[in-house]
C-alpha cells in the first residue's frame, strides 16, 4: 500500500500554502479519483490527479482471450456506456476481418448507442447537479434512466453489462414490443429534458456556480487531447459521428451542439442539447428501421442460430469450432474511434493472424480529458474543483482500465 503514502511531488512552495488530499473516497470524485491540492487559503495553487485505483489490467486480459470473448470485457471499461464500448470494439474487429454488417444491425447499433448516450448523460447530469447542490435533478434523471435500463434489459437481458453487439452483428433479435416501448420513451423524453432545464438552466444559483468557472480555451483543449463535450464546450466544432462517420451515422441528420465560453456552464449546455439531438436520432432510427437479418452471413465467425444448430450438422460444427478454437483474424492493425458520451473512444487492435488478439489498446476519452483539470482549476477557488471534475464527466473505470 505504499502508493497510498507516497505523496507525488507537491511540496508546499511557501509558508502560506498547504497540501490537501481529496479522495480517493470522496463523494464528488465519481469513483476512486484522488486529487492532491496545494491551496493558499481557499485558492488552488496547484492540483494533481492521482489515478490507478481501479486498474484491472483489461488490456492484458484481452490478449489471453479469443476475439469474441473480449466483448464482455469492454462493458466493464466504461460502465456508464457499455454499448458504446461494445460498438467500438466490434467495429475494429470487423474492420480487421473486412466484414460487412447488414443494415438492420447497423441501425439497431445506432439506436442503442444513442440511448446509451442519453443514459450516460442522465447519470452525469444528476450527479453533477448533486455535487453543486441541486439534489432534486438527481431523482428526476434517475427516473428516466430507469426507463432506458428497462429497454436494455428487454433487448439484451442485462441492465448494465449488456454485451449485446457481437462481431458480425447483434446477439439476438430485438424482442416483441421493443420498438413500441422505445417510441413511447422517445415521445415522452423531450418533455423531461424541459423539466431538467427548468430546474437548472435559468436558475441563478446554478449560473453563479457554473458560469465563468473552470474555463479552458479551444487551443488548450485541443493541445491537451480533450474531446467530446469538453472540446465542444470550448467552441471546437468536431464530432466523430458527423465528421468521420461509422456504423451508418451518415444516414442520420442531427446537429452538433457547440458552446463558445469553455466554462462549466458551456459544457452543461452542450450535453443537455445533446440529449435532445440523441433522442432525435433515436426517432429517426425507429422511423427508418430496415427489415432483414441482424447478423452477417459469415458462418465461420458468427455463431449460428440455436434452431439451426440443433437441426443442421454444419451449423453444429461451426458452433463447436467457434466456441472451442475461435476464429483466425487476418494479420493487421486497426484504430477505430467512436464518439462516446465522453469523447473520442478508440480501440487499437493488432492481429497476428491467430484467434487471439495480439494487442488491444483502449484510448480512453476521460484519461485525456482529465489532463485539462489543472488548466481549469489552478488559480480558482477550491469549491470550483468540484464543479470542474463534474463538468468533464469522468468515469474512473475507463481511466484506469
Amino acid at each position: 500500500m505504499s502508493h497510498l503514502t507516497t505523496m507525488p511531488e507537491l511540496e508546499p512552495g511557501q509558508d502560506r500554502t498547504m497540501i490537501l488530499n481529496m479522495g480517493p473516497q470522496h463523494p464528488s470524485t465519481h469513483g476512486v479519483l484522488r486529487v492532491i491540492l496545494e491551496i493558499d487559503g481557499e485558492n488552488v495553487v496547484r492540483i494533481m490527479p492521482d489515478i490507478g485505483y481501479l486498474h484491472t489490467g483489461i488490456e492484458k486480459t484481452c490478449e489471453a482471450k479469443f476475439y469474441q470473448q473480449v466483448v464482455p470485457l469492454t462493458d466493464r471499461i466504461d460502465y456508464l456506456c457499455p454499448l458504446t464500448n461494445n460498438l467500438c470494439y466490434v467495429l475494429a474487429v470487423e474492420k480487421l476481418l473486412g466484414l460487412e454488417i447488414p443494415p438492420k444491425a447497423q441501425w439497431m447499433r445506432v439506436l442503442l448507442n444513442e440511448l446509451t448516450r442519453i443514459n450516460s448523460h442522465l447519470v452525469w447530469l444528476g450527479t453533477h447537479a448533486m455535487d453543486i447542490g441541486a439534489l432534486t435533478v438527481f431523482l428526476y434523471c434517475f427516473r428516466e434512466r430507469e426507463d432506458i435500463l428497462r429497454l436494455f434489459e428487454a433487448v439484451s437481458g442485462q441492465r448494465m453489462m449488456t454485451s449485446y453487439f457481437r462481431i458480425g452483428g447483434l446477439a439476438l433479435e430485438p424482442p416483441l414490443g421493443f420498438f413500441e416501448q422505445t417510441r413511447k420513451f422517445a415521445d415522452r423524453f423531450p418533455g423531461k429534458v424541459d423539466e431538467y432545464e427548468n430546474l437548472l438552466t435559468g436558475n441563478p444559483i446554478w449560473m453563479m456556480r457554473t458560469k465563468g468557472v473552470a474555463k479552458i480555451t479551444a487551443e488548450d483543449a485541443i493541445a491537451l487531447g480533450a474531446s467530446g463535450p469538453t472540446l465542444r464546450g470550448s467552441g471546437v466544432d468536431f464530432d466523430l459521428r458527423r465528421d468521420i462517420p461509422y456504423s451508418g451515422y451518415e444516414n442520420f441528420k442531427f446537429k452538433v451542439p457547440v458552446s463558445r465560453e469553455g466554462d462549466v456552464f458551456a459544457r452543461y449546455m452542450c450535453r443537455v442539447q445533446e440529449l435532445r439531438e440523441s433522442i432525435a436520432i433515436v426517432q429517426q432510427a425507429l422511423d427508418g428501421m430496415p427489415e432483414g437479418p441482424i447478423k452477417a452471413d459469415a458462418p465461420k465467425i458468427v455463431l449460428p442460430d440455436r434452431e439451426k444448430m440443433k437441426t443442421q450438422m454444419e451449423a453444429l460444427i461451426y458452433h463447436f469450432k467457434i466456441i472451442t478454437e475461435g476464429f483466425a483474424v487476418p494479420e493487421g492493425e486497426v484504430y477505430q474511434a467512436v464518439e462516446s458520451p465522453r469523447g473520442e473512444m478508440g480501440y487499437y487492435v493488432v492481429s497476428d493472424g491467430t484467434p487471439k488478439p495480439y494487442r488491444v489498446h483502449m484510448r480512453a476519452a476521460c484519461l485525456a480529458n482529465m489532463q485539462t483539470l489543472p488548466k481549469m482549476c489552478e488559480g480558482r477557488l477550491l469549491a470550483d474543483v468540484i464543479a470542474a471534475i463534474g463538468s468533464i464527466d469522468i468515469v474512473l473505470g475507463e481511466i484506469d482500465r
Partner: protein
Amino acid sequence: MPLTPAVTDLQQLKTHPAIAKLLAWNSAAVEGAKFDRDETTIYIERSWLREACVLLRDDPGCPFNFLSDVTCVDWFPSEPRFEVVYQLLSIPKKERVRLKVRLEGTAPAIDTVTSVWPAANYFEREVFDLFGIRFTGHPYLRRLLMPEDWEGYPLRKDYPVEGYR
C-alpha cells in the same frame, strides 16, 4: 467485402500528403510506410521523431493538431522489439495518420513529444508504466496506473498474465 492487401512500398505511397511532406523535408526520417484497411502508417526513424511531429502538427495544408493516442506493441522475442504507436488526427481536415517508431529491447528510450502535444503527458506515462519505455525529456515520468513500487512491466509479452507469484 474481400480485404485488399496492404501496400507497403514507399514509392507507391509517396503521393500521400503527409508522407510527401516528410520525404520533402528529410527522406532519412522516413523508414517506411504502409496503407492497409484505409489507414496510413508511417515508420519514423527514432532520432527524427520529435521534429517530424512538429512538422506534421504545423503543416498548413493538413495540420495534425490533435494527438489521439500513444501506445506500444511488444513483438517479443523478435528485434526490434517495441513499436511505439502514435495516432494523429487533424481536426480541420478530418484526417488520421499513424506514426510508428521501432525500438530495441534493451533499455528502450525515445524522445518525448509532450512539447509538441501536451496531451502526450499521460499517454507516455502509461506506456512507461506498462512497457518500461523511457521518454527522454518527459516532465514527470512516473508510473501512472500501477503502484509506485511495482516490479516489472505488465503489458510486456514476457510478463505472465497472472503476474509473478
